[in-house]
């Protein structure tokens, strides 16, 4: 399809897109707490890849020599805490969990408290998938963050967006940004045929950078976002 674009126009377009995607954005992960662990809260709608991202992210951090604790604050979905714990044991980090159906904020609180007590570098908090349209669940998410912050500042709030998501991705991002002030986006499932073009708009409108991309279900399938490669993939023949 795109091969119909004359080469020159294509170059202009590419440059313009790269500019839009803004290679200059600070995409580094903020995981350094000040005397307390850095806290990363991972949020998003159902099934986007939050738990998987946490597993993979823990792996990256461990590889950098950091100590990590996972907090299973998805107390809602069946076996969600098991899923996180399986990831934890894959990458060799402990998981703090609570009773199924319990209060997610208190699990998050416990995880951070435990992280502080054992002096780890980073606490990664998983949350239940929630549609941004559900006010009650969004309020709950706000509370999770506030409760954590009684113990330690949340250094990074990552919104996981599935690359297959269409226009709704923008709406999702707006609402999550409003409720928990997202600081970075993880674009998951880029290993498929979907290209995740919606994040360009999300990034522009909310001024929140895409920081990481998910490229599969394996432990090592999380890599930093790269503006140029992303644009090339967008423009590539489908």
């Amino acid at each position: 399809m795109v091969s119909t674009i004359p080469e020159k126009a294509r170059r202009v377009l590419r440059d313009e897109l790269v500019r839009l995607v803004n290679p200059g954005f600070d995409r580094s992960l903020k995981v350094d707490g000040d005397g307390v662990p850095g806290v990363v809260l991972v949020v998003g709608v159902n099934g986007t890849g939050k738990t998987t991202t946490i597993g993979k992210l823990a792996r990256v951090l461990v590889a950098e020599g950091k100590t990590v604790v996972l907090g299973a604050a998805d107390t809602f979905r069946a076996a969600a805490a098991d899923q996180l714990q399986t990831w934890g044991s894959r990458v060799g980090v402990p998981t703090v969990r609570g009773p199924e159906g319990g209060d997610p904020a208190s699990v998050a609180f416990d995880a951070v408290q435990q992280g502080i007590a054992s002096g780890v570098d980073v606490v990664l908090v998983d949350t239940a998938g929630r549609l941004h349209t559900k006010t009650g669940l969004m309020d709950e998410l706000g509370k999770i963050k506030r409760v954590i912050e009684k113990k330690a500042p949340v250094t990074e709030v990552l919104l996981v967006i599935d690359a297959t998501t269409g226009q709704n991705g923008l709406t999702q991002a707006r609402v999550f940004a409003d409720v928990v002030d997202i600081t970075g986006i993880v674009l998951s499932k880029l290993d498929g045929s979907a290209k995740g073009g919606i994040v360009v708009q999300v990034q522009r409108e909310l001024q929140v950078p895409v920081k990481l991309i998910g490229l599969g279900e394996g432990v090592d399938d999380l890599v930093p976002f790269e503006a140029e490669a992303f644009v090339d993939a967008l423009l590539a023949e489908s």
Partner: protein
Amino acid sequence: MFDTLQDRLSEVFKNLRGKSRLSEADIDATAREIRLALLEADVNLGVVKEFIAAVKQRAVGVDIHQALNPTQQIVKIVNEELISILGGESRQLRFAKRPPTVIMLAGLQGSGKTTLAGKLGLWLKEQGRSPLLVAADLQRPNAVNQLQVVGNRAGVHVFAPEPGNGVGDPVQVARTSILHAMSKLYDVVIVDTAGRLGVDAELMQQAADIRDAVNPTEILFVVDAMIGQDAVNTARAFADGVGFDGVVLSKLDGDARGGAALSIARVIGKPIMFASNGEGLKDFDAFHPDRMASRILGMGDLLTLIEQAEKTFDAEESAKAAQKLMTGKGGEFGLDDFLSQMQAVRRMGPLSKILGMIPGAAAIKDQINAIDERDIDRLEAIIHSMTPGERSNPKILDGSRRSRVAKGAGTTVAEVNALVNRFFDAKKMMQSMAGGAFGGGMPGMPGARRAPARPAAKSRTRGKGVSGNPAKRNSHAPADAPVDGTAAPAWDPAASFGLGAGQSDADLQKALSDYQLPADLQKMFNQKNLGPR
């Protein structure tokens, strides 16, 4: 965001005076607006082009002097075309002549297969069948446990001989599940499979092997309603890789327009059979093409709104409020009612969602946007500082009462004034809407559906049959409530919409469309304001 097709088209047709037919330019402009509306709803670009061609043909015949104005006629055409694609082949679940019936679920990662397995299991059980869930997702960590928990909640047995997390052969599990079902006399087998990508040839082959091992009666492709332009690629990959007989659209409880439904129905030609709309096991329904058509067009899924309203609102309370509003019976509609309506609206989800579901919302969106959801707590404080008499008749709130209220609520007189003014505005607005101008209900005023029947001339405009699940709706409605209001058309050609819709940047859009950009990007350039908000 909430510009509906009506809003867009009325803009196009502003200057039709004196003509009897649409000019070619009118039709082109119409086509462009429909195109944008569909792209915004995530309908596949190729499908949009085809669709537009069909609509254009019919648009040529539009007669400006008919009872319906051109906007209404075009919207009607578009709606009809959408419904015919979406509902072209709708059908029921098939059961095998010789049990067990085998239903295989396939789809991308995270599309909602495991949850759906539980919902289907419960649904079948309630129909007197004896279903068995089969844990053949041995890939995703703890997918097997998840299915077990879900099965447990649904009261349906789960066949899970392998622990999963990478251990066990899903093809083998699927095969033995059939023998197990036959020996234990389960009559429906639901096979949950791992999520896989269309581009993953190896896993696609595995899905085909599972299929061959169980010889399914139905293969259902489960797809997330939020999916964008990739829907067609993915659906095609699954159609080619394993084949499927029907589609289940999941996560319809969100606010995605769900244009993928149209793309898949059109390109693959398989019926959409079910809609999955919540995390609860009962949040599952047959698919309604007419509701989906309205939703895709941004004209509001009114029936869903009403059902949700029924779940959330206290039926009696809102019926009382409606009565007050419409007839003044049972006292004036006062601030207490106003507050409880606003609180109920808040319980229903962010206003954006509700807005998106109201036909013609553009006309009133400014008023509605002025209600900040987080204000509600403050409003509550103010209202609670008033006497019961003041609440039921705010007209008596003179200067000294207002300053007393302000003090009591720890706020300023200006805030109290603002609230009182807003109340009177809202009351007026709700009364006019409850009167039928919008052909249905509205969130501040869900009880409006129990308003006196609208004039027959209006109800007649609903061409297609009444959709939905009347039994279910009836069971929510109070016995004395006329249910005919619930059958209000999701779009109402007789209503006059016409505000809103900013002009888009036509030249840039046109230039870019010549380049055949991916639709996501076209959309982006189409936005007038490219800068951050």
